[in-house]
């Protein structure tokens, strides 16, 4: 595959010639790649956001442990000290019922009745906020806390997190399948575009083979053509995704102010990476397929 400068200028010239000669088919190919990459990006954006929501939820309080009333403070703290060393426990924050009441008031300042109730005679408990390393470990951990005699109740929202996890797994699979099918369709279209280019030059290809050109020397202009088609299509898709996501974040800021959308730059960097790699791969693969028959001389 060694190539000197003469080779490179030959290849670039040939590629340009092919692209321009078949400009309509080139346009069709670019559009197909763009559609396919846009769908890929759609699934990517969904998965990225689901992961983002999951991460945000996980970083919030995962488990609340409430302690029985009238338990001596020393016993509460003893359990706290022990539980810090249990596996999967990341952090434990102790709170008193006064602190619990204060944070409730802060969270729901408009609920007059509630505020009045907890101000008069605080019905709340002392307790712990427990954070873990592994959301899957939450149920066992809850069980373990529950066995302690001083523990009154254990509350956790692990179910939400694990359901989100499942959803994003399903989504990933659906995404791969849809993308696989679309990828095949894209491949098919690009193969045909390049086959046209090869067909127009089949005499050249034949003569080159017969005078001793290597397969790679003959392939390069067509491979480059495939890559250009793939990259152009991907860039179109990336533009659409970028515009669309900007619009979405704008709209969401008004309609769902507390919904944690993944930031634009992290979405776009992943979308760019996947679509460009995908575009190049599809382009290269398509040109190899299109040429196979013609190189068999």
């Amino acid at each position, binding site marked *: 595959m060694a190539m000197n400068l003469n080779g490179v200028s030959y290849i670039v010239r040939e590629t340009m010639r092919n692209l321009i000669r078949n400009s309509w088919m080139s346009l069709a190919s670019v559009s197909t790649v763009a559609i396919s990459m846009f769908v890929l990006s759609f699934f990517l954006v969904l998965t990225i956001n689901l992961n983002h929501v999951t991460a945000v939820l996980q970083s919030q309080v995962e488990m609340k442990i409430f302690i029985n009333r009238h338990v001596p403070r020393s016993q509460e703290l003893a359990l706290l000290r022990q539980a810090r060393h249990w596996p999967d426990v990341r952090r434990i924050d102790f709170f008193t019922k006064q602190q619990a009441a204060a944070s409730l008031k802060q969270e729901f300042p408009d609920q007059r009745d509630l505020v009045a109730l907890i101000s008069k005679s605080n019905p709340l408990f002392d307790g712990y906020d427990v954070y873990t390393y592994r959301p899957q470990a939450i149920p066992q951990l809850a069980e373990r806390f529950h066995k302690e005699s001083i523990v009154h109740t254990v509350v956790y929202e692990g179910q939400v997190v694990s359901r989100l996890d499942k959803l994003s797994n399903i989504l990933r699979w659906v995404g791969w399948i849809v993308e696989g099918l679309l990828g095949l369709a894209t491949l098919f279209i690009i193969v045909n575009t390049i086959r046209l280019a090869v067909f127009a030059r089949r005499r*050249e290809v*034949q*003569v080159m083979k017969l*005078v*001793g050109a290597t397969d790679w020397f003959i392939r390069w202009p067509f491979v480059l053509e495939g890559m250009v088609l793939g990259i152009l299509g991907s860039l179109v898709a990336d533009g659409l995704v970028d515009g669309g996501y900007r619009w979405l974040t704008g709209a969401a800021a008004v309609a769902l102010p507390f919904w944690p959308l993944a930031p634009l730059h992290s979405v776009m960097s992943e979308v760019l990476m996947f679509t460009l790699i995908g575009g190049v791969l599809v382009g290269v693969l398509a040109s190899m397929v299109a040429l196979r028959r013609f190189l068999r*001389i």
Partner: protein
Amino acid sequence: MIRLDKVSKRYPNGHYGLVDVSLTIRRGEFLFLVGPSGAGKSSLIRLLYREEAASQGEVFVDQFKLSSLRRSQVARLRRQLGVVFQDVKLLPQRTVYQNVAFAMEAVGASTRDIRKRVPQVLELVGLSRSRDNYPHQLSGGEQQRVGIARALVNNPIYVIADEPTGNLDPETARDIVKLFVEINRRGATVIMATHAKDIVNQMQRRVVAIERGRVVRDEVRGAYGYES
């Protein structure tokens, strides 16, 4: 050295192009391949540059054993050979100059070498004045000379020509054979399939005659041996 060892060529439709052919051609030789139409001359030549593979037996070209060549080695084999095809295979959309230069581009020659070498070869075959013509603007003989120039441009060790003087008048044919003699004198091995009786008789070189796919005669200073 080129060596065929009990080579047979059977085409997919069942026809035999060659039957049990054994032949050795040493470096520097000048060899005429003669025989009636359909005898198997082109079949033999196509085996040498590996457009076709032998059905039985083995073909050797220098260090290459043709039955077990990988794709990349086929390219290297062909760079040792300069082939003039029976149907010439010129590119109609390229000029004489571009057709010849194309063979150099295809093997990655530098622009400088191409600019230097192509005019030399065109001069050699006497086409300097037609360098900017397209193939359809040339006579049959001129087209064949472009094919010859293209075969010679990469300085091959073996020059293999399949009826390079077909449909030429005797005068021009003789010029072309003289050209091959000159190339042979400079060191290239020349293998030439031909029907040009007078030239073969006059040249007194090695003659290999093929009939119905078999070698029927191999003489060091041979004659054409057929009524034409």
